[in-house]
């Protein structure tokens, strides 16, 4: 999260607060058009338009989960075939060593298990969690981001960021409030 700078910034960024998702989305779009890139919005529930507005879409998870699933499948096949054909080949109930139809259920379960695991871990890791500390929390009113308020944060290490100008710009989005975010 913490971006590296030549010289330590005075502040982490500027944060505008809005009362409803529509206002947030509108503001985010404006900021994006204005050329800001290093920014983020915060909302008490997922607002699809919001991340579209700030131009974020991460598709890596699909591939991760697919990979996870395949790994599980192969594990299942490999494990059972190895156990029954190589590790200890023995006559069970007169069934052939490779009773593949009876190996299906375990393969299936392992596929699901691995896929699900990779999905959850993938999400957590890509989101850089756990991160109990974040500058945004320095803003007292930010606790309402998990209740009923909506925030737009422009980070100070955005090339276009200028403490004054950006502040003016945000004011223009008529937020209910604007805060400076300490690092």
């Amino acid at each position: 999260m913490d971006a590296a700078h030549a010289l330590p910034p005075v502040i982490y960024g500027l944060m505008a607060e809005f009362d409803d998702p529509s206002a947030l989305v509108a503001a985010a779009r404006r900021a994006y058009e204005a050329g800001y890139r290093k920014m983020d919005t915060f909302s008490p529930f997922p607002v699809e338009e919001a991340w579209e507005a700030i131009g974020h879409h991460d598709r890596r998870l699909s591939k991760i989960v697919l990979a996870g699933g395949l790994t599980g499948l192969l594990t299942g096949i490999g494990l059972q075939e190895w156990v029954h054909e190589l590790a200890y080949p023995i006559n069970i109930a007169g069934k052939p060593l490779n009773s593949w139809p009876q190996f299906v259920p375990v393969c299936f379960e392992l596929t699901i298990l691995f896929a699900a695991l990779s999905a959850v871990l993938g999400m957590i890791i890509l989101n850089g969690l756990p991160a109990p500390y974040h500058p945004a929390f320095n803003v007292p009113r930010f606790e309402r981001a998990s209740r009923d308020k909506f925030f737009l944060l422009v980070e100070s290490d955005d090339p276009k960021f200028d403490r004054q100008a950006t502040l003016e710009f945000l004011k223009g989005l008529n937020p209910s409030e604007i805060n400076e975010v300490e690092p």
Partner: protein
Amino acid sequence: MSAMDFSAIRSRLAGSEGRLYWRSLGELADTEQFRDYLHREFPEQASQWNDPKGRREFLKLMSASLALAGVSACTKQPAEKIVPYVRQPEELVPGRPLFFATAIPFGGVATPVLVESHEGHPTKVEGNPQHPASLGGTDTFAQASILTLYDPDRAQTALFRGEYRGWGDFLIGVKDALGNHRVNQGTGLHFLTETITSPTVLEQISLIQKTYPQAKWHRWDAVSQANDAVYHFDKADVIVSLDADVFAGGPASIRYSRDFATRRREGVDVEHGGTEAAPAAKPMNRLYAIESTPSLTGAKADHRLPLRASEIEAAARALSGSGGGGASFSNPNAQKFIEAVAKDLQAHRGTSLVMAGDYQPASVRRLARALNESLGNAGATVTYAAAGNAPDDPAASLRELAQAMDAGQVQLLVILGANPVFTAPADLKFAEKLAKVGLSIAHTTHPDETSVLCHWNVPEAHPLESWGDARAFDGTVTVMQPLIAPLYDGRTTAEVLSAFIDEQSGKSAHDLVKDYWTRAYGGQVGGFTITDSSGQPFKSAESFWKHVLHDGWVPGTGGAGREAGGAAAAGAAAGAAAATTPERSSNLDPRTSTTASAATGGLEIIFRPDPTIWDGRFANNGWLQELPKPITKVTWDPTAWISVKTAEDQKLRDGDLIELKFRGNTAKLPVAIVPGHPDGAVTAFFGYGRGVIGRVGQAPEDVAREFDVYRLRTSDALWFGSGLEISKVGRYVIARTQEHHLMEDRRPVRDANIEDYRKDAEVIAHMGEKPPRTMTLIPEWQYNGYKWGMAIDLTACTGCATCTVACNAENNIPVVGKDQVNRGREMHWIRVDHYFSDDLDNPKTYHQPVPCMQCENAPCELVCPVGATTHSAEGLNDMVYNRCVGTRYCSNNCPYKVRRFNFLLYQDWHTASLEPLRNPDVTVRSRGVMEKCTYCVQRINYARIDAKREDRKIRDGEVVPACAAACPADAIVFGDLNDPASRVTKLKQLERNYGLLEELNTRPRTTYLASLRNPNPELETARAATTHD
């Protein structure tokens, strides 16, 4: 609560198409009462511990145990000690068992056996294949005797008035006691024994009688098998049983079962020694049973006529065409039946056989003998002892003693083996009279009802601890040698008697026996002509003795010379008895009756020894207690048998507790309704309700004490009598291993009449469907090495259950106790299933031993999550105890339900005295582990290793599982299916070979040979219509 509606049953049976089998009667009636009966039978909240504590604890104790150390791979094994010999015996190879020939007397008659011994402790009893009275077979009692040997409740030291004494003290005690008898020639000196056939002991007795002419010797057998006839089933085509149960166990039944089975099969299958032309040459024998209490013999019979015990004599008369013609029988079919039988007998003069029951009066025995003689059977199919061995009145001798005691004439009473206080007829009041005896000596295996009332108690050595000799049922003298030094201070009868003979006093049993036979060899005693089996004389007494010890029997006393032997045996015994046997009371003339036949008023009571614990002597033997009794499959308790009709009349149901009132005495018994039991009669079994014996056999201080049927027995009605009154007094939970005796239309037992089978051998195959081997998608496993399989011949099987007990002994199978059996948790690896069919009042009865089928497509293996049961390269369905987690899925999925589960810790981990009993070659299973028949894989491995070391294949018959080895009828055959020459392969090629539930395509390796019967067409008409479905 009214009795179940039997008319409903009848109508169902009548209205049903073809052959109908039924389950337990209640279900057939399927009445409300039956359901609530079921529920009362098993109270839902029944606590785990409704068994008397002491008793339950002991159940564990009756089975050996070996900690499954390190069942879980992580446990660290405790350090184990190895204790080598200081000086190692020559013949002993640690790790390899030795076999010794000896004998186990039963009621004085020898059962010849080989005993397996591991590092000096006997673990298993097998039959003696060379002995004419065994031919390798055994019976339940011989098999179970090994458990009695290690029974921790055995009498352990000599006691005088309850205080510890040594053997030496006893000898002195006897000397003192004999003091004045020397003067008065032995007046007031009395001996009481059971039947004795031991030449050594008989000589001792005659010596004593020389020294003390006034001494009296009394004989009392609670259940006397003494019968002066020896049957030769191998020569008999038509056999008639007059209430004789020749398959019930006991020394004679072993050889009888074998001969009978052989003759039954020879006529059918080439493989059983017959020829293509065999059927004509050697017809299958035909067995008629005219009997009272349903017996194994009756079950095997081609035709059975249920009569009250009191009517048997009349039947015998009618049969011999002498007088009884006009007699009226309780059974309407009797006349027709007897006529047909008589006709058949006449048609087979010289090859027929009439057998009189041991529990019928002498008159019936005489009638039978007369009949045999007139038919020219005597000497052919039956041989008789010169002198009648069994006294007319078995109680006379004992009565005389009782009178003497009462008159205070008995100063010194020596009781050897018998337990009169428990078994004597009630009217003799033996117990109170015993108090009047000056000095009493009891020589018993366990502290029992008699010994606790005697001054001196001398522990009796177990046969496997003893030197001795005895005659087999056919007279063959059989020598006993100890397998182990007496565990306690036990002594043999000969040793005890030696105390009364100056020149022998204090001699060891070994010396006594060897001395006798050395003199016998020299011709001084016994009058034996001693040669080896080939008729040649021996080099010396020593070589003769060695030879006898090795073979276990004295050639020339039996075998070829069975008649002579029989005579000698009986003669000797009779001579013994002669001392007191009163004058034969008239009627040697078979035509006059001795019994008041036809019950007048009230019911008739019939006494029988218990099928498993006999006269009570095996009450402390867990294996026999838990062995399901034939027909009823009841364990641990006696039952009173009544017929269906009687049950209706008396409004009784299975499990009702009734009070029996007979001649003023009372006892209580739970009811078992037994189809085929004569109407208007009740069979009560001796042996239960013991007051003193041991932790297993001792009846708890509750109603079970009143199960003592001896209380009802009077000396004028030793085996049956009329005037019994019964009344229901409550319910009693009986533990059965089989509740359902109906085959449905599933045909687990397939049977046919020999004629139909000869006409079309396919008839057996058509009774079920067998999927073709091609009917599968998956490739088959090939078995190229050995391919083990088993064939069980239901034509031969008599249902004696010896296989079950043999399996117990071989495979360290635990005893679980009544409560657990009642919950359906018995552990027998091979069970004997029992089914009825046809006529409710006189059904056909079937027995079917069911071990693990060792399926090639084993359903159990498929579902085991840990692979604890898998298939070996030789096609065995292996069970790996140490891998088993105990999901019980395998048992659920086993269509034969032959798997057994250790629901609790059934094994005993504490009792030291039982440790040596275990078969060291078989893992002892712990709690939570599934187990089942392994085809005695330990024996297979043993043979395979020997064969490999000698670089050869295992020979046919080299591997014999315990059940097959023990089977007296040779009904179980085991071997290699890949060996075209092996017996089992040949048997499986017979058309009457079929697999149980083979339609499931489990491909069982154990298969059955259908049961064939040889009915008399004249009597068959009734059933002909319903023989096939």
